């Protein structure tokens, strides 16, 4: 009877045993691999968890906010909204005309006493205003008024219309320690009958049923339908942008994180690969022995892989724990176990794949060695050269260093690249930090051109006849004033911006107010650059009464339509003598950067903080990578150095040689860092500028680079000294004998 015997290769236990043994005998290498893995995992973890924390925190904030505000409501509309089933919760509020007192903007408001689940500034002391004479304010408001912050104090308010009314402070509102707008909360009675609020229509803050589960588009659709059914015009539907944008994850944020994540993984592939490569090459004889003893190629591969997996798990777990700690410290409010565990698992898998990719080649190398080859194997064998060109080269320690680097080109290059990637990351991170100085950041908007903005008094624009134009008739900001400001010592320049108030009719908007701004012939190229739609000719614009629309996308957001090219807009304005009505043709539209900037501001500060934190972490990462690689390079060659010493190389000569090698690596690294790092930093700033971060200006991070150069050059000096000293703990013979 024929029986085919299946060759059983049940070797799980012995492979596991060998791997564990091997790990125990090469502690130095393990520490460096662990460090690399823990660092990359930690970096990925901090980045994603901090982002997730930000999202969670924002969602927590949003969960106590309204989804939409229906504005400008009359009684029947309020009734209709109250009867809408899709509205989970509705609360009424009024926002009065603001006015200035002692440099602070004061805003009369009314909202209901209990507005849960929507958070409003609630009363933290005293009571909610009950009758027409009672108000509730921030404590800081009392400060602004020069009064003592106590309940029962009488406050006299002079409104825009010049009327003064006296109120009793019934309660204090939460928060508002640092503010420029001071709310004054009035009673329901005042909202109905008080002079400042009675003519202001109500607005309804609503939370919509199941809105959290909808897409942004479906949500907008829902609130617009609800509005239309209740007879609320589109422009009076004000969705909570924070909420609606939270419905779709920001693609840019995710892309940034994914990009940086892939970069970090690539760096760790390089580092883990080179460390494993060196380690495998160093113990090739052992693998040869195992092969002679009957280990199959597959078993050797499994052995190396097993070592990698064990190190990967240990490194990843410690990296993740560190990341959890840091992420929690960054965003304690945003901690969420479910997100944390899922993200950690994803990162863990990504890193496991990274390690597999990194040790694939070293494992193959280990498996491919036959017993005979192994005895004569040297890392230098990888290089095809069999002969040198010269019979005798200069054998000074420095020359030996050059020869070592040249003879082992692959390893030298690998090390340089591994260092270089870290350097490039460092320079890019540093470029971000120095390119975004707080000054530039706070100089967004008008402040990018100057330190002071002089404009009309708000109360005046609201009260003077014909508003802005009324003041412009007798413009206080005239040439004389400009000249006198320019005359002040220290003033470099005065820039003027002009606009005038108009009202217009277009589509369903009748008598809508807006402003009109001119641009000069010299400026037309800039305007042309910003043009998103249409085209113009400066002279024709004047001759044919043509206009350009700024921020057409904003119109789309508010009204649900855009200004179409070729359409006619009827514009009315006060020309100083009388109200004039004139028709203009739309010939172009543009989306100016500054407007975009305001829209994206919140998300930018968020992104900025993240990149800033990331840059600092990356700088730390690349420094540790640098030290790691340099130390590995020295420690893994202990035997080679002992050999040189056994035939008469003195400590001093050995140190000179090691330092020379460090110098060669450093030079290669610095060239890579300088060229690619500068390019990457410049590109990053360019990209950030192109998406609106105009406050970024590329600056070469010279101090960081100098620091990096110093560390790159000094670490080999110190490490070589320390290792030569450490070598002496064991006698030369012991060192010669030891494989690792």
């Amino acid at each position, binding site marked *: 009877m024929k029986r085919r015997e299946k060759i059983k290769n049940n070797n799980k236990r012995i492979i596991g045993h060998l791997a564990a043994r091997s790990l125990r005998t090469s502690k130095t290498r393990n520490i460096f691999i662990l460090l690399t893995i823990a660092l990359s995992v930690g970096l990925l973890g901090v980045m994603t968890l901090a982002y997730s924390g930000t999202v969670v925190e924002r969602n927590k904030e949003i969960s106590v906010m309204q989804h939409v505000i229906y504005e400008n409501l009359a009684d029947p509309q309020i009734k209709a909204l109250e009867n809408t089933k899709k509205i989970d919760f509705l609360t009424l509020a009024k926002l009065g005309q603001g006015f200035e007192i002692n440099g602070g903007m004061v805003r009369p408001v009314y909202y209901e006493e209990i507005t849960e689940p929507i958070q409003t500034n609630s009363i933290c002391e005293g009571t909610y205003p009950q009758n027409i004479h009672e108000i509730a304010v921030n404590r800081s408001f009392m400060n602004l008024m020069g009064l003592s912050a106590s309940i029962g104090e009488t406050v006299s308010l002079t409104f825009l219309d010049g009327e003064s009314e006296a109120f009793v402070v019934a309660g204090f509102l939460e928060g508002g320690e640092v503010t420029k707008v001071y709310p004054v909360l009035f009673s329901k009675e005042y909202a109905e009958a008080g002079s400042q609020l009675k003519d202001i229509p109500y607005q309804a803050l609503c939370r919509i049923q199941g809105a959290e589960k909808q897409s942004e588009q479906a949500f907008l659709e829902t609130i617009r339908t609800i509005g239309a059914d209740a007879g609320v015009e589109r422009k009076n539907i004000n969705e909570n942008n924070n909420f609606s944008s939270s419905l779709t994850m920001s693609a840019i944020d995710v892309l940034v994180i994914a990009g940086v994540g892939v970069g970090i993984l690539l760096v760790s592939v390089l580092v883990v690969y080179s460390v494993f490569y060196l380690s495998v090459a160093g113990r090739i004889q052992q693998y040869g022995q195992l092969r002679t003893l009957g280990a199959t190629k597959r078993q050797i591969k499994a052995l190396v892989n097993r070592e990698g997996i064990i190190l990967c798990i240990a490194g990843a777990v410690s990296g993740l724990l560190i990341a959890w700690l840091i992420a929690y410290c960054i965003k304690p409010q945003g901690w969420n176990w479910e997100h944390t565990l899922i993200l950690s698992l994803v990162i863990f898998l990504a890193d496991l794949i990274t390690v597999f990719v990194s040790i694939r080649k070293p494992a193959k190398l280990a498996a491919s060695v036959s017993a005979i080859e192994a005895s004569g194997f040297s890392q230098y064998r990888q290089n095809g050269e069999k002969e040198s060109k*010269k019979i005798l080269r200069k054998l000074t320690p420095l020359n030996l260093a050059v020869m070592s680097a040249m003879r082992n080109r692959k390893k030298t290059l690998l090390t340089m690249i591994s260092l270089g990637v870290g350097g490039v990351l460092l320079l890019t991170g540093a470029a971000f930090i120095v390119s975004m100085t707080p000054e530039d950041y706070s100089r967004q908007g008008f402040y990018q051109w100057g330190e002071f903005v002089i404009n009309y008094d708000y109360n005046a624009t609201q009260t003077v006849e014909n508003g802005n134009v009324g003041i412009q008739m007798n413009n206080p900001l005239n040439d004389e004033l400009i000249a006198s400001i320019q005359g002040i010592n220290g003033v470099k320049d005065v820039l003027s911006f002009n606009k005038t108030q108009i009202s217009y009719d277009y589509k369903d908007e009748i008598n809508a107010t807006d402003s009109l701004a001119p641009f000069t012939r010299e400026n037309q190229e800039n305007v042309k650059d910003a043009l998103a739609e249409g085209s113009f000719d400066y002279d024709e614009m004047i001759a044919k009464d043509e206009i350009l629309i700024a921020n057409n996308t904003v119109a789309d957001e508010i009204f649900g339509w855009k200004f179409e090219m070729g359409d006619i807009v009827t514009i009315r304005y006060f020309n100083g003598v009388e109200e004039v009505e004139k028709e203009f043709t739309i010939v172009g539209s543009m989306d100016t950067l500054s407007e975009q900037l305001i829209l994206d501001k919140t998300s930018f500060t968020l992104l900025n903080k993240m990149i800033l934190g990331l840059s600092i972490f990356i700088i730390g990462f690349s420094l540790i990578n640098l030290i790691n690689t340099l130390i590995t390079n020295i420690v893994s060659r202990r035997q080679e150095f002992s050999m040189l010493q056994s035939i008469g190389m003195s400590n001093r*000569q050995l140190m000179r040689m090691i330092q020379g090698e460090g110098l060669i690596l450093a030079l290669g690294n610095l060239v890579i860092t300088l060229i690619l790092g500068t390019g990457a930093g410049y590109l990053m700033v360019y990209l950030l500028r192109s998406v609106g971060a105009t406050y970024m200006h590329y600056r070469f991070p010279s101090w960081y680079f100098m620091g990096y150069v110093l560390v790159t050059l000094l670490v080999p000096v110190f490490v070589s000294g320390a290792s030569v000293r450490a070598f002496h703990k064991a006698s030369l013979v012991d060192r010669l004998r030891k494989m690792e």
Partner: protein
Amino acid sequence: MKILETKNVKKYYGNGDNCVKALDGVDLSVDKGELLAIVGTSGSGKSTLLHMLGGLDIPTEGSVMINGKELSKMKEEQLTIFRRRQIGFVFQNYNLVPMLNVYENIVLPLELDGNKPDRKYVHGIIDLLHLKGTETRFTNGLSGGQQQRVAIARALASKPAIILADEPTGNLDSKTSQEVLGLLKMSIKKFGQTLVMITHNNEIAQLADRIIRIEDGRICEG
């Protein structure tokens, strides 16, 4: 005239019950110009003794004197320099530097000492050891026997006072072994050198002036 002398040299590894006595009180003296062979079973302490003689290892107890100088009293740096000038080593595993070619390996101790090699002399050694034509080759491309001969050439190149060789003919066929030993003998005669070698080969040992046998870390014959 004594060139090399050890007094009660002991080398212990570990302590207590685990204590291994690699050398247990070796007293030995070697005269200038002598060819001494050390034999013994593996693990008897031959290599350890050789390392002690060359200052590569430090004895737990006792002293090693070369030319009246006690090695353990020298500073690390001094010892290294002393070693590369006075002692030529032939290691069992060759210890050749892979980034250097054959010629460079041979003259490395001289170069490290800042000396110009005596080219005529070095080429003479290369001829004798049948290494002619391999000068510019890298050592990892050579056979075991060739590498052994490079290691011997390196030990001879700096004309040291003492040559310490661990199985110098271990990888050589018997004909080459005889030739190599002939060369070593000729060299010590010409330059008044002393040779201490470890060997397993009785024929080779018989060519020595004196044979000592080591067992359990002690000299038991010789």
